[in-house]
C-alpha cells in the first residue's frame, strides 16, 4: 500500500499520482490546474516544494514519510524516507513487528568484549609459552573481565548505540516511550552504579514493548532494579509488635502510574463521574495497603558472579549491591504476608497460596481493569503523536487494547499500530494550528533525529558508538532512565502557562522547556552543527613538541571519530533553495512555514562558504518552532 498523495485538482477531485512517473508536477511549466495542499501554516508557499528535482507531490509525500518516521522511530535518514515512501506505512509497521528485538544488552556485552580484548592485548598474550601457571593467570584475568564494571554511563552508551543502529526502530522507539511510564532512574546511587541493572531492565521494555502488556507488567514488577527503585525489594511481612507494616511504595505506583491511574475512566479516556459529578477514585488507601501485602517477600536472586559457596548464596535482606541485577527477584515465602488479601473490584486472593501466585493474581487483576486500555492509549499517543488526543482517538486505540481483532487483550504491537495508523496521526491536511495534533519534541528525540537524519557514522574499523550523552543531559535534563523521580521528566497533565493552559490543553514536554533549557538546547545545536562530531569527544595530546606533530596526531584522531555524512547535503549546498528543500523534508517533515523558510533562506544566501552555509541552515532549522513542534 502506498500512502495517499495529497494533490487535488482545483475542481476538488482527488488525483492519485505516481510519485515515480513524474507525469504531472509543479515546476518546469507544469503549473496549470494543480493546487498543492500543504501541511504547513500558510498558503503561498507552493513554489519551493517544486524545486530540487522533486515534483511537488513527491516532496510532499517524502515530507509526510519523514513525519511518520519522526513518530514511529528515532528518525529516518534520506534512504529510509525514500524506502518507506515506496513500501508504505502499513508494510513498514508489519516489517517492524516481525523483527527480532535488538537488546541494549547486546551492545553492553560488546563493550565488555572489547574491554577484555584490549586488556588481553596489553597484558594477556605477552608470552605464548604453554606454561600452566601462565594459563591460570590468564583465566584469572578473564574472570576479572566477567566482572567488568559497568555503570549508568555504559548503559547510556549502549542505549545510544542501539538507538542509532537497531533496525527494529519501532520497537526501540516504543521501549523509550515505556521507559517514561514504567520509570526507573539512575539518580539513586546504587542504580547509577549498576549498568547491568539499568540495561537489563530497559531490555524488558524492548522485549515486551510490542508484545503483551501482562508480560510487560509482570517482568517490570519482578525486576530487581524496579524492586530497588520502588523499594519492594526486601519488603518484609508486617510485624505489629514492632509497628512494622508492608512498604506501600510499589503498590501505589504500579496502580497510579503503570496501569490504571487515579480515576475510573471511560474507554475514551474521560473520567467516569458519580451522581454528584465527581470523578471516582480507582483505589483507596485501604486498597493500597492490601496490594502492599501482595508485594512482600521479594528478595534478590544469587548474583551470577557468586561462587557455589553456600555463604555466597542470596538471602532475603541481602542488599541490592550484592544480588543479581539481571535475574528476576525471587519469592522468600517466609517473608511474604500470610492471609487473604483483597484486590480491586472485590476480588479476593485466598490465604495459603504462594507469594508468587499472589503477585500473578494481582497483576491479572490490574491487567484486566478496564482503565488500562485508555490509560495506555493516552500515554502512547502522547509520546508518539500528540499531547492532546481527542476522546475518539483514545477510544479507537483502547478498543484495540481490549481486543486486537483476534480476541487477545493487551497486544501492544496492535495498539502501537493503531496509534500510528489512526487518521488522527496520519491525516495530513489541517494539521497546522490543529490543537489536537501538536506536541513539543523531547530534547533527546531531537538529538537522536539529528544524528540519524544526518547519518552520524562510525569510522572504518570501529564497531560501537560510545556516547554517554552527558552534555545533552546537562543542557536539557534528559537522558534515558534518568528522570528525577518516578513521575518521569514531565507529567502527562502539565500545562505550560499562557496560550496552552488558557485553552485547558496539555503540553507535557514544556515542563522541561524553560528559560534555562530552551537556551541551552540552542547552544547544544550550535555544538552539534559546528564541531567535528556531535558527540562529546575530548582529545588530549601529551608530549607534543611541534605544531606539525600535533596536527598529525589530530588528523589521526579525527579518523577514529564518528562524524556526520554531509556529502549528499554538500552537493546541494551551492543552491541554497535545493539545500533548504532537502532539509525541510529530512528534518522538518516538509512543515517549514513560508516565513521561516524565507528567514533561513535569507540567512544562508549571505554565506558563500558551503559548509558554513550548511551548518547555518541546519542550526536554524533545528532551533525553529517548525522543527520542534511535531504536528
Amino acid at each position, binding site marked *: 500500500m502506498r500512502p495517499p498523495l495529497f494533490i487535488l485538482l482545483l475542481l476538488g477531485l482527488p488525483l492519485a499520482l505516481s510519485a515515480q512517473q513524474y507525469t504531472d508536477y509543479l515546476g518546469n511549466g507544469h503549473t496549470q490546474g494543480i493546487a498543492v495542499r500543504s501541511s504547513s501554516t500558510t498558503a503561498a508557499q507552493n513554489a519551493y516544494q517544486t524545486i530540487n528535482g522533486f515534483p511537488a507531490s513527491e516532496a510532499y509525500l517524502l515530507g509526510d514519510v519523514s513525519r511518520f518516521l519522526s513518530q514511529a522511530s528515532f528518525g529516518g535518514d534520506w534512504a529510509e524516507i525514500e524506502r518507506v515512501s515506496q513500501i508504505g506505512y502499513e508494510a513498514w509497521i508489519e516489517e517492524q513487528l516481525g523483527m527480532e528485538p535488538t537488546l541494549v544488552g547486546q551492545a553492553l556485552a560488546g563493550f565488555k568484549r572489547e574491554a577484555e580484548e584490549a586488556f588481553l592485548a596489553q597484558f594477556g598474550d605477552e608470552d605464548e609459552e604453554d606454561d600452566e601457571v601462565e594459563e591460570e593467570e590468564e583465566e584469572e584475568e578473564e574472570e576479572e573481565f566477567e566482572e567488568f564494571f559497568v555503570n549508568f554511563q555504559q548503559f547510556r552508551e549502549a542505549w545510544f548505540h542501539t538507538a542509532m543502529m537497531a533496525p527494529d526502530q519501532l520497537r526501540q522507539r516504543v521501549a523509550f516511550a515505556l521507559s517514561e511510564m514504567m520509570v526507573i532512574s539512575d539518580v539513586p546511587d546504587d542504580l547509577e552504579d549498576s549498568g547491568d541493572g539499568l540495561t537489563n531492565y530497559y531490555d524488558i521494555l524492548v522485549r515486551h514493548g510490542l508484545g503483551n502488556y501482562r508480560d510487560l507488567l509482570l517482568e517490570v514488577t519482578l525486576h530487581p532494579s524496579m524492586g*530497588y527503585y520502588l523499594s519492594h525489594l526486601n519488603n518484609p511481612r508486617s510485624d505489629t509488635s514492632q509497628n512494622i*507494616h508492608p512498604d506501600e511504595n510499589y503498590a501505589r505506583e504500579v496502580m497510579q502510574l503503570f496501569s490504571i491511574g487515579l480515576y475510573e475512566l471511560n474507554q475514551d479516556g474521560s473520567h467516569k463521574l458519580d451522581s454528584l459529578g465527581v470523578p471516582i477514585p480507582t483505589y483507596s488507601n485501604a486498597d493500597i495497603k492490601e496490594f502492599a501485602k501482595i508485594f512482600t517477600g521479594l528478595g534478590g536472586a544469587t548474583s551470577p558472579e557468586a561462587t557455589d559457596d553456600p555463604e555466597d548464596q542470596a538471602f532475603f535482606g541481602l542488599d541490592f549491591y550484592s544480588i543479581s541485577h539481571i535475574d528476576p527477584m525471587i519469592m522468600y515465602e517466609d517473608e511474604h504476608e500470610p492471609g487473604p488479601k483483597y484486590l480491586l473490584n472485590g476480588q479476593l486472593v485466598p490465604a495459603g497460596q504462594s507469594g508468587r501466585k499472589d503477585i500473578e493474581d494481582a497483576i491479572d487483576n490490574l491487567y484486566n481493569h478496564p482503565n488500562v486500555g485508555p490509560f495506555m492509549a493516552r500515554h502512547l499517543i502522547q509520546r508518539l503523536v500528540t499531547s492532546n488526543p481527542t476522546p475518539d482517538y483514545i477510544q479507537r486505540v483502547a478498543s484495540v487494547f481490549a481486543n486486537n481483532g483476534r480476541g487477545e487483550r493487551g497486544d501492544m504491537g496492535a495498539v502501537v499500530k493503531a496509534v500510528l495508523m489512526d487518521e488522527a496521526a496520519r491525516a495530513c491536511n489541517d494539521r497546522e494550528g490543529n490543537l489536537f495534533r501538536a506536541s513539543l519534541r523531547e530534547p533527546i528525540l531531537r538529538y537522536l533525529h539529528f544524528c540519524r537524519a544526518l547519518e552520524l557514522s562510525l569510522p572504518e574499523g570501529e564497531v560501537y558508538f560510545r556516547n554517554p550523552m552527558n552534555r545533552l543531559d546537562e543542557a536539557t535534563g534528559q537522558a534515558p532512565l534518568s528522570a528525577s*523521580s518516578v513521575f518521569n521528566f514531565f507529567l502527562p*497533565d502539565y500545562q505550560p502557562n499562557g496560550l496552552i493552559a488558557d485553552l485547558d490543553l496539555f503540553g507535557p514536554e514544556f515542563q522541561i*522547556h524553560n528559560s534555562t533549557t530552551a537556551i541551552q538546547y540552542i547552544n547544544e545545536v*550550535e555544538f552539534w552543527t559546528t564541531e567535528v562530531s556531535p558527540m562529546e569527544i575530548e582529545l588530549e595530546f601529551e608530549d607534543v613538541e611541534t605544531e606539525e606533530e600535533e596536527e598529525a596526531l589530530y588528523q589521526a584522531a*579525527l579518523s577514529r571519530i564518528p562524524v556526520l555524512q554531509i556529502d549528499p547535503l554538500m552537493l546541494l549546498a551551492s543552491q541554497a533553495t535545493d539545500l533548504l528543500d532537502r532539509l525541510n523534508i529530512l528534518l522538518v517533515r516538509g512543515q517549514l512555514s513560508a516565513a521561516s523558510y524565507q528567514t533561513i533562506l535569507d*540567512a544562508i544566501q549571505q554565506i558563500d562558504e558551503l559548509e558554513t552555509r550548511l551548518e547555518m541552515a541546519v542550526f536554524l532549522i533545528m*532551533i525553529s518552532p517548525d522543527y520542534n513542534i511535531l*504536528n
Partner: protein
Amino acid sequence: MSAKKISRRTFLGKASCAAVGSVSLFTGLLNLKATAMLAANSHRMHLRPHNDYKALVCILLAGGNDSYNMLVPTEAQAYQHYRTTRSNQALEANALLPINPLSGGTFGLHPSMPEVQQLFQQKNLAFVSNVGTLVERVNNRIDYENKVNRLPLGLFSHADQIQQWQTSVPQSRSAVGWGGKLADLLHASNASQDISMNISLSGNNVFQSGNQVVEYAISPEGSTGIYGYGEEDPINQIKTAAINNLLEQQYQDIFKQTYADISIQAQKNHEQFSSAIDTVTVNTIFSPNYISQSLQMIARTIAARNLLGVNRQTFFLTFGGWDHHDELLNTQAGMLSVLSKGLGEFNAAMQELAVDQEVTTFTISDFARTLTSNGNGTDHAWGGNTLVMGGAVNGGDIYGTYPSLELRQNLDVGDGVLIPTTSTDEYFAELALWLGVAPSDLPLILPNIGTFYSPSSTSPPIGFLS
C-alpha cells in the same frame, strides 16, 4: 560538522558581507502579554509601588521529608511514645541536638543539623508543626473515617500532594500556584517589569506559575544566553538576525508560539539579568553542593535587586530525594546535613548583605511520613513539620501544635499518619501578608483561607512573622 574542518573559528569572516537582515518587524507576543497583564492589574493600579524590598525563598523538599525525625520531642513520656511508635526508625535520645522553644517544652533536632540548632537558638529560625493540606479542618480520626469533612484529592500521592503544597487548593487539580497568584498581584509594584519577580533555581514549577506571571528559570551559575548572539562578526550577525526572525514571528499554532515565546524571552531576560548579576559580589562561602550553590545564586540575585529594579521577589528551589521508603536513617541524615549547612550559609549571606530582615526562607514538602516503619523506611503520610528562617521570623520557637506521636491517638488515622492541625493556608497566609499582600486580597491567592482564618482579623494567622 565534518572532519574536514578544524575549528569553526576558521570560518569566521568568510561569510559574504551582504546586508544583515534587519530586526524582525513582528512585535512578538511579549508585548501582548504585557498588555494583558496591565489590563489585569489595572484595577489595583492605585497601589503605590513598594519602595522597600522583600523576598520569599521557598525550598521544596520533594518526596516527603520525614520531619518527625527532624524535630523530635524529648520530654520523657513524649520521647517514649516516639521511640515505641517509630521502632527501628527512631533516633537515639542522646544523639539529638537539644533546643528549648520559648513557649516551653524540650525538643531535639536531628543530629546532622547543628547549623539549624544554632539558628534556632539565635532566634533566626522557627518551626511550624503538623502543617498539611486541608480543605477544611478534620477534628479527629473518627471524623476522618466517617468522611465528615471534605478531604484533599489524592491524599498520600506524591503528584497531588506536591502540587497542593504549591497551590493550597487541595480540592482541585490546578497548575497555578499561590506564589504565582501573589506575583500576579505584586508584580506591578516592582519598578522594572522586564524579568519575572518569580525566579526559579529548579525550572518550571507550580508554586511560581500565576495566571499572568511565570517563573524565570536560572541555574546555580546564573542565567544562560545563546552563544554568539549579538556579536559583531558576520556569521553571528546573520545568525542573530535569523534567530530573532524565527522566534519573534507570529505562529498560528499555539505550541509553536509557546516554544518561540519561551526561547526568545529567555534570551532577552538573560541579557538584562547577567549584566546585573555580574556586577555584584557575595563574600560568604557556600558549600560546593548543588543546594548551597543554588542558594548562593539566590543571594547574588538579591544583591543585584536594585540593578534589576525589583522590590518584591520569590525564589524557588527544589531539593529532591526525600522519599525514604528505604534506607531512611542513613540517607536522610546526609540530606538534612546539606539542608542545615545551606540554611546556615544563606542566613550568613543575608546578614552580610544586610537584608536578613527582608528575606524569609521557608520549607514545604509533599507530606511527612508514616510514624511506623516499613522495615527500613517509612511511607507517605500527611501533616508534617516545616522550617522558617530570617531576621523577620520570631525565631526560637515551635508554632502550631506539636502532636502526640502515640499510635491510635485522636489524630492518627493509621500507621502514624497524622491529621494536620495547621493548614497550608494559614502557613502561607502569614508569609503572603508579610510580603505585602493586602489582607483583603488574601482570598485571591489562597481561596480557602476564609475557612481557617479571617483576613479582617487583627491577629496574624500563626504568628511566626513580625
